[in-house]
């Protein structure tokens, strides 16, 4: 029982960070219908940013997101404007290959610049934890979970309460209709990619104190982000939030009961089943 509770809890905490990654991808997909294979690499850039802010300027990783978010937003907007924008109407496989290419460029450029060493960001609290009822809770993970919640709430506010946010959601729902309604779809795309990148970067910053950093780290998260996004329904922000937490739990609990070797199989099986039987996602309303 203790093992179960322990794995549930750490699953939920990790799931919060996954949710951020998933939300970023889902906004990008929703608005542009582009599957961003470079999403994990964007996250990796965020991690390096956090690492250098910490080692060079001694800014705490959790504080550094104040810097990371705007920088990553600009980075994402740049990527969209220079690259993604040019393939919006292109065949899906070309879009996919473009983002794969961008990912390769990012990870290898970082490798050239900073070598492929594992970078480990050790804060005072990196391995601190406390116990409740025999279940240990990692402090940094708890902090990052709290920040995730704050950011998610802020994001919801932005998307549901501001004009720009609503325009983004309208574009995500129906690009053509949004255009007819006079929404500047191009601008929304840039904002969406910026947001996606900012969220991925933030996720990178949040896991930096408990994880490690190397140029190829992105691939681990790209696949996870896809699973989360599909689980929640492509383009659905609420869905991605829940999807992230669900995947966190599935990995953690699945690892205990099926062996950690098989947990990825389970995750991908769930992913396939959802794709097949509920392509609109677990939360989506099915259209007959």
């Amino acid at each position, binding site marked *: 029982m203790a093992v179960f509770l322990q794995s549930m809890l750490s699953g939920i905490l990790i799931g919060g960070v996954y949710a951020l990654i998933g939300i970023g991808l889902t906004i990008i997909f929703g608005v542009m219908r582009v599957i961003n294979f470079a999403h994990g690499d964007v996250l990796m850039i965020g991690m390096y940013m956090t690492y250098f802010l910490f080692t060079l300027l001694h800014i705490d990783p959790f504080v550094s997101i104040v810097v990371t978010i705007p920088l990553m937003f600009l980075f994402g907007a740049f990527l969209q404007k220079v690259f993604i924008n040019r393939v919006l109407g292109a065949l899906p496989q070309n879009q996919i290959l473009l983002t794969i290419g961008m990912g390769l460029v990012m990870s290898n450029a970082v490798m050239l610049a900073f070598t*492929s060493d594992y970078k480990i960001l050790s804060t005072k609290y990196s391995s601190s934890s406390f116990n409740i009822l025999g279940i240990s809770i990692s402090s940094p993970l708890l902090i990052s979970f709290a920040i995730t919640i704050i950011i998610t709430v802020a994001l919801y506010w932005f998307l549901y309460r501001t004009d720009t946010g609503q325009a983004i959601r309208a574009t995500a729902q129906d690009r053509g209709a949004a255009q007819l309604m006079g929404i500047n779809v191009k601008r929304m795309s840039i904002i969406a990619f910026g947001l996606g990148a900012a969220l991925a970067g933030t996720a990178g910053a949040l896991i930096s104190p408990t994880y490690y950093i190397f140029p190829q780290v992105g691939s681990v998260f790209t696949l996870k982000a896809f699973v989360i996004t599909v689980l929640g329904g492509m383009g659905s922000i609420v869905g991605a939030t829940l999807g992230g937490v669900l995947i966190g739990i599935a990995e953690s609990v699945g690892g205990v009961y099926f062996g950690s070797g098989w947990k990825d199989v389970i995750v991908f099986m769930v992913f396939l089943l959802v794709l097949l039987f509920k392509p609109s996602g677990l939360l989506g309303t099915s259209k007959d």
Partner: protein
Amino acid sequence: MNKAIVALMLALMCIFPAVVTAEAVKLGFINSITGPEAPIGENLTNGVILAIEDLKEKGINVDLIKEDDTGKPEKSMAALEKLATRDKVVGIVGPYTSATSNADAKMAERYKVPLLIPAASKEEITRQNLQWTFRTSGTTGDYATILLEMASKLGQPKTLAILNENTDFGVSAANSAKAVAEKLGIKLVFEEAYSKGSPDYRSTLAQAKAAKPDLVFMVSYVADAILLMRQSREIGLSPMAFIGAGAGFSVSQFASEKEISHGIFSSTQWTEDVPWGNSKAWYQRYEKKFGKSPTYHAACAYESMMIMGQAASTVGGDREKLRQQLRTGKWNGILGEVSFTDYDGYQNQRKAQMLVEQVQNGKHETVWPSELSAKKPIWPFPGWTK
């Protein structure tokens, strides 16, 4: 279609042998410079760079051709192929990983070119009756043996949990550990091969804790090693001893995480403490040049290149002579006395003297075997600092 032919011709022109002129000893070096194995690969590159410098000092000029295999067997084979047939090197040092070494070993046999594998430790590589493959590195069996023997001498561990990364190296090391444990009468109570790069091992560790093992044996590279120990501390997994099979547990980056590394054992092939050669000076030189401390990979790669360079300098480009040199020669360097012999089903294998290090207050200290050790081991595991 026309374009296809033109392109083909161009491609062929790239490939056809270029004119070769060589005075210096022409050697090849295959390594994982890019790709997922690159972080460790870099240590090998650095070791080789130092070796080339030292060889030059000894008057041996090496014309070194470096090849990147990106960690993939077929690329590694292409590299070996190119070195053996196009560049016509006398001997080759490399590659890094077990998978690539395995593929290259057979190819070296086909081209009759001496291949000296510096760091790959999968047992089977030198157990296939290959005449042209030599190995400086100890085997995964060596890693497990010294650790478990030490544990049996220091305490009476009855149970063992194994956590290994689900890679070639991880699985081989885990298998060797199982075999050794069985010989020593230690019972395996928990075993898990995790996929590396996962941010959360807590559930697995909680399970391991529930199995109450005396020894926890882990195989992983540095990043996961730190993660595993951080999370072990969180979970409160506290056995009689944590033992790590080299790799991640024996690098200084791991030791510097004082809160989580104190008291952890790991087996290794080389430390700065060993009385062999000028290890201490070499350590300092490496640190100065590359801004980080060398791993045993670097030491093995360095020594391999030294051996290859010295052996090759006397044979005048004759591969068969070089092979004889390697089979019969003895070298003394930072790995102590090295020779390649046939034993226990191995061929051309260095009988490595393994060492056990323990992290004590953020530093690796050699603690076993006692005749080579600098400090006494802390036994049992002192528990987590609060």
